[in-house]
Structures are given as C-alpha cells and as structure tokens.
C-alpha cells in the first residue's frame, strides 16, 4: 500500500547521509617520505574499492614517488614488503600534486572558497548530507602538521575550518584520521558537532614506520596505516563492521604508539556507525513496485528551468550581475564655475574692450 511505500521511502532517507566524499592528503615531499605517499595511496585504494568514485575523492600528494628518479621500480608504490601490493595502479587520479598541496589549498578545499576557475575535480562539492572522510599523513608535532617542509597547519586552524564547514552545511558527519607523530594533538581543538577523530599516536608519542624494503631502500608504510589497510582489506561494500572494530586496529603491541580517538562530538554511538558509512559509498537500493508521488502539486508541471551548469555554482551571482552603466558627468555647478572663472581671467588679461565685440 501507499502508506508502507511512504514508510520505506522515509527509511530510505533515514541513514543520515546520501553521498560520500574523501579528502586524502599526504603532506610531505622527498624520497625518504615514501611511506606517507604509500599511506595515502592505500587509503585511496580502499576507499575507491569500497565505492567512492574519483569524482568524490580529493587526493593530494605532495610529491611523486612512483616516478621519482630514485624509485628502482618506477610507476609503482608498494605498501607491503616484498612488493606484494602495488597501491599505484593504472587508475590513480591525483587532484593536487606537488607544490599545489599547501595549507592554503587544503583549507580552501575544505571550506569551498576556491577561485571560480577551479575545476570540479579539485573541489569538495559536498552538501549537508555528505559523509566526509579526511585522512592526513605526514610529519607532525604537538598541535601542528607540517606541509611541504616550509609551512604548517595548526590544530586551531583545522578546528576553525571544520567549524566553517559545519556552518556552511558542508558535511553531515566527518571522520578525521591522522597518521603523524603526536597526531592526537590535531583533534584536540575540534569543536564542531558530528566529527569523529582517530589518530595514530598520543601527544608526546611518535608514530613509527612499519618496515623498510631493502630493494626500494625506504620504509614503505607507517604502522598505523599498515594495520588499518590490513583491516580494510577485509571490508567489502556489504559488510556490517562498525567503528568499534576500527578503534581496535593497531594496539600498542603492534603500533608501539597508542592510537587515540575522539568521539564526544559525534552524536551517534560508534557501535552503530558502519565502516562503509565513511570508507565506502553504499547506496541503498530497494526495489519497489509502488509509485510514490514526490511532488505535491496536481498540475504536475515540472519546473522547466533551463538552468545552465554555471547557474548552480556560487559564481553565477557574480557573473549575472551587470552593473548599471551610469556614465559619470561632472556637476553642472563645477562646469559653470570653471568656465566663468576662465572667462573672467581672459577678460581681465586682455581688457574689457573685447567684451563689446562679443555682446
């Protein structure tokens, strides 16, 4: 019946979010920070495997490890020793690369305040029903994360950026994962609702890397992300694993550092939050034979707004506004005064005798 169909329709929209986004950023460059790029790419791989499309992933890599001249195996980035898993496949789409990964760009992506010329692939076009996963890795300290070796983002800036996102209704729920030294300091200052945060180490602790590969010559992964990757490899789009299992990833025995988490800002119980709520893009599909009328009006005339693509972006308010072309004219009093004075001076200089020839 219609009532039951309406009920299931409401349930359809009851899970809270309708789309998933992921922002994955690796903030360090140079060959010896291979593991940070590998971290980010492994999370990218999991997230993509679980269904989030590239158009909804903003991948920021501060350096190119796959095609680095020191890479003995070019076009690959391995995450397991003995080159078991190449996380740099054929379809990796990097949105911000090299020096484009900066604090300014990161904050602009989060808040959406990008110049109108920025392409869609570099934007976070989320709405108030988006669940966003933000993963950061690199070198950090107590209260900051280093970008590119010459600048840093502080935990206060990050908290303010998230608050801007909340006020602009840019997320429904946010999962913030950070794998750096003293990572817990980065979620200390968050104050916006619906954020859950995970970090690889507490304040005062260092996050350690997992294992070096002697063929490549660098450490391939960090411990926390390595174990998280192993955990995520067992997740598939239909699994019902929840956050409590993610919290158990990488205990002190394996990670040497103590992973931290922050759930006080999150409204739901972590046990009811599925991993795929953040890491995957799961669409609930229910087959129904009932027709459900979503519009109220009886006329049924669809609003035929021929709105072009550009009208939906914030820039449309600027480009459609034409300034009223009022030409400026000098005030009449000014012209009168000026020419009277000029005439006076002229007659004073050349005598009043010319006046009688004119009048």
């Amino acid at each position, binding site marked *: 019946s219609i009532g039951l169909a309406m009920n299931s329709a409401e349930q359809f929209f009851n899970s809270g979010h309708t789309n998933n986004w992921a922002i994955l950023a690796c903030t360090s460059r140079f060959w010896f920070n291979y593991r940070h790029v590998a971290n980010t790419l492994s999370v990218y791989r999991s997230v993509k495997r679980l269904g989030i499309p590239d158009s909804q992933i903003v991948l920021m890599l501060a350096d190119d490890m796959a095609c680095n001249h020191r890479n003995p195996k070019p076009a690959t980035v391995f995450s397991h020793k003995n080159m078991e898993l190449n996380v740099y496949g054929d379809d990796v789409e990097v949105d911000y690369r090299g020096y484009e990964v900066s604090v300014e760009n990161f904050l602009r992506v989060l808040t959406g305040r990008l110049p109108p010329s920025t392409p869609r692939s570099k934007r976070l076009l989320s709405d108030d029903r988006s669940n966003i996963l933000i993963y950061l890795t690199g070198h950090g300290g107590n209260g900051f994360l280093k970008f590119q070796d010459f600048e840093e983002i502080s935990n206060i800036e990050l908290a303010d950026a998230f608050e801007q996102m909340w006020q602009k209704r840019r997320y429904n729920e946010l999962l913030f994962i950070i794998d750096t030294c003293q990572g817990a300091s980065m979620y200390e200052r968050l104050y916006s609702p619906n954020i859950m945060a995970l970090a690889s180490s507490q304040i005062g602790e260092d996050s350690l890397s997992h294992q070096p590969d002697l063929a490549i010559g660098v450490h391939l992964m960090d411990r926390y992300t390595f174990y998280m990757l192993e955990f995520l490899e067992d997740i598939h789009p239909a699994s019902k694993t929840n956050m409590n299992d993610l919290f158990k990833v990488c205990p002190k025995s394996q990670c040497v550092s103590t992973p931290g988490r922050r759930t006080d800002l999150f409204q739901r119980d972590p046990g009811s939050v599925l991993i795929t709520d953040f890491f995957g893009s799961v669409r609930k599909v229910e087959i129904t034979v009932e027709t459900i009328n979503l519009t109220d009006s009886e006329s049924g005339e669809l609003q035929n707004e021929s709105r072009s693509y550009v009208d939906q972006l914030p820039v449309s308010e600027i480009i459609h506004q034409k*300034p009223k*072309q*009022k*030409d*400026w*004219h*000098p*005030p009449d*009093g*000014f012209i009168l*005064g*000026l020419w009277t*004075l000029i005439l006076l*001076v002229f007659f*004073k*200089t050349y005598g009043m005798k010319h006046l009688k020839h004119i009048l």
Partner: protein
Amino acid sequence: MAAPLTLLLIVAVTIRAALFRSTFAYWIAERVEVVSPLTAWKRVVEGLALLDLGVSPYAGDVFHETPLIIYLFHFLVDYAEITFILADIIVAVAFYYVVKDYNKQVFRKQKFALEADRYPADCHELVRTPKEMYYIPLKAALFYLLNPFSVLSCVAKSTCCLNNAVVSLFILATVKGNMLLSAIFLALATYQSLYPLTLCVGALLYLMQRQFIPVNAYRLSFWWFVAQYAFMYLGSLLVMVALSFFLLGSWDFLPSVYGFILSVPDLTPNVGLFWYFFAEMFEHFRLFFLCVFQINVFVYTVPLAIKLKEHPVFLIFMQLAIISIFKSYPTVGDIALYMAFLPVWILRNVFLVSCVLLMCSALFPVLWHLWINAGSANANFYFAITLVFNIAQMLLVSDYFYAFLRREHHLVHGLYPKKKDGSEATLVLK
C-alpha cells in the same frame, strides 16, 4: 621666424603621430622611465573607468591625478593623442616666445651697459649680438620638440606633458610681465605637482625688476608687490582646490595626490633617487629621510635666489632643473623641459655630459631587462645607472651654472684678469 617654426611643428607632429600609430606606443607606455605612478596614462583610464562604475577614482592606490585632469579627460579621452601633441606644441611655442622676449631683455640690458661703458675692454667677444642670437628661440623650441625624451613622453601619453605645458605657460606669462596670469599658471602648476612652488621666487624677482621695483627687503613697495602676488596665487590655488572638491564632492584627492607626492609610498623604480633609498629604509627612519629628501628640493631656492637675483630667468631655469632631478617621481618628460633651455646660455663640458646622458639612456632598458626579465641582475644594477644618470644631470646643471657665473664674472672683471703685479691670474672656483 614663423615659417621655420611652423616647419618644426609639422615635423614634430609627424614624428609623434607616426610613433602613436606604430607598435612602439604600447611598449613605451609601459616603460618606468617614461611614466611614473603620478603620470601614467593607464592610470588615468583606470580612474575614469572607476568613475563610470560609480566608485571614487581615489579609492585604492591607482589614480593619483588631480580632479581637473579627470574633468579634462572625461571629455577628451577619445582625443587623447591630439591633446598630448597639442600640449607639446604649446610648450614649444611658449618657449619660443619666452626665449625671444628674454633675448630682447638681454639686448636692452647690454645696450644700457655698453652705453654706460660698464664692460671691461677685453670683453667684447662675450657680448651677445642679435645676429648670433637670432636662431636661439627656434633652437629652444627644437630642443624641446625633437628631444627623444619629450617624444617618448608624448607617445606614452604621460600627463607630464600637460604639466610641462602649464609650467611653460607660466614662464611665458612671467616673461611677458603679466602678474595675474603668472600667478594663476603658477597656482595651476603647483596644483598639478607640488614642486613648481619654488619657481615663485624667480617669477617674483623677474616681475619686480620689470616694473622697476627695487628688490629691497626694507622697502614697502617690495612687500606690497609680494603681498599682491601671494594673494593672487593663493586665491587661485584656493579656487582650484575648491573646484576640485565640487567636482567629486569629496576631499580624498588631497591625500591621494599631495599625500602621495610627499610621502612617496609607491617605490616602483624610476629615474629618480627616492625608490632605492626608501626600499631599504627602516620604518623607524622613514619620516626623517622623507623630510630630508623633500627639503632637498626646496632648500636650493633661497641661496640660488640670493646669488642669481640679477638673473631671474636663469634662476627659474635652475629651479626647473633642480625640481626635475630631485622630485619624488621624476620622468624623462621633466628632463626634456629644462633641457629646452640649454641653447639659451652656454655650457662647458658638452661632450662629456651628452655622452654620459646618451649612454645612460641607452643602458636603462638594458639593465631593466637584465634585472626584471632575465633575472641575472638585481636592483643595484638599475639603481647604478639611475645614479649615473642623475650625476650626469647634476654635472650638466652645475657646469651650466658655473659657465653662466663665470661669464658674468668676466663681464664685470674682464676676460684676462691680472694679478696685482700684472702677471696673468687664473680663476679658481672656490
């Protein structure tokens, strides 16, 4: 003399028109030696466009012209090229008449002196004859019109040409003896850029001598004349400032124009000396050095006036030269203005000075390119050539002054001075 002058004007107009139509015009308008933040045409257009959009042109750091320029170009912006060519023609014709009139004055004085037998016997070769001075007015106009500096400045549509026109009209009014017009044009010149204020001393001296008022601080007639002139000058200046207020309805042209000239906030490199010093100055000392540099322009007025009180037109020339060298945003247009007077008096080291000036002018774009485009030089290179250019100008001016003074000295004391015992003495500049 009308025919050669007309021919010269036609040639000058042709050169300028040809350059306006060529591809150089755009490049020249971008050169920092030719345009400054005060005079650039790009900024005038920007200011007018802002005004059309309903915003005050003085909002923001773009437009630094006076409101009368806004009024002028509001109607003439499509005919800008003709306006600038006309301004150059006005300068040339004004200088022509100025030099002609000045020559007449010189001959009259010489005649009186010769009749009174005040020149020593061996000085006759120093006395000017009408025959050799016949072509000097034409030469003055020629020096201005065909000077590459003024051609560049006109083609770049720098409003320096308009400032030059006003100053030349002021000199013409002064030389013709018209106190009111002289005061009005001086007020206009000061209103445009503050520095022509120093020219008032020369004008006052000239006008007083022309009316045979003794230049004596204890005489009432002196002070009465000064009061009259000051009243006319201040009155017209006030009227102009008031008119400017009524044009836009606000006073923000005052900090934008005069505050800008005096406090030099824009440190774009130019042919002057201010930018380099102030780029590396500590904030703490900025006000002090600003005062020093600005006073430097005005401080030569009184000593020069005392020394040159018999020769006010030369005083005006010296002041013009000093203003052009030491003002806060000089361009080559200002230099062209005082160079027009060079044929009127004599100069000693012509070859050296002209070579240095030519070389510097050629090196300016080269070192700019090396610094900005190629990146292999730095600001010091460009400042070095600026420094050399200014030193050459100072050398020119001081040489000129020395030659003039020496000629005057010889006219009084004889060409071959003898020591007390009859042997030949040499003149030494102390």
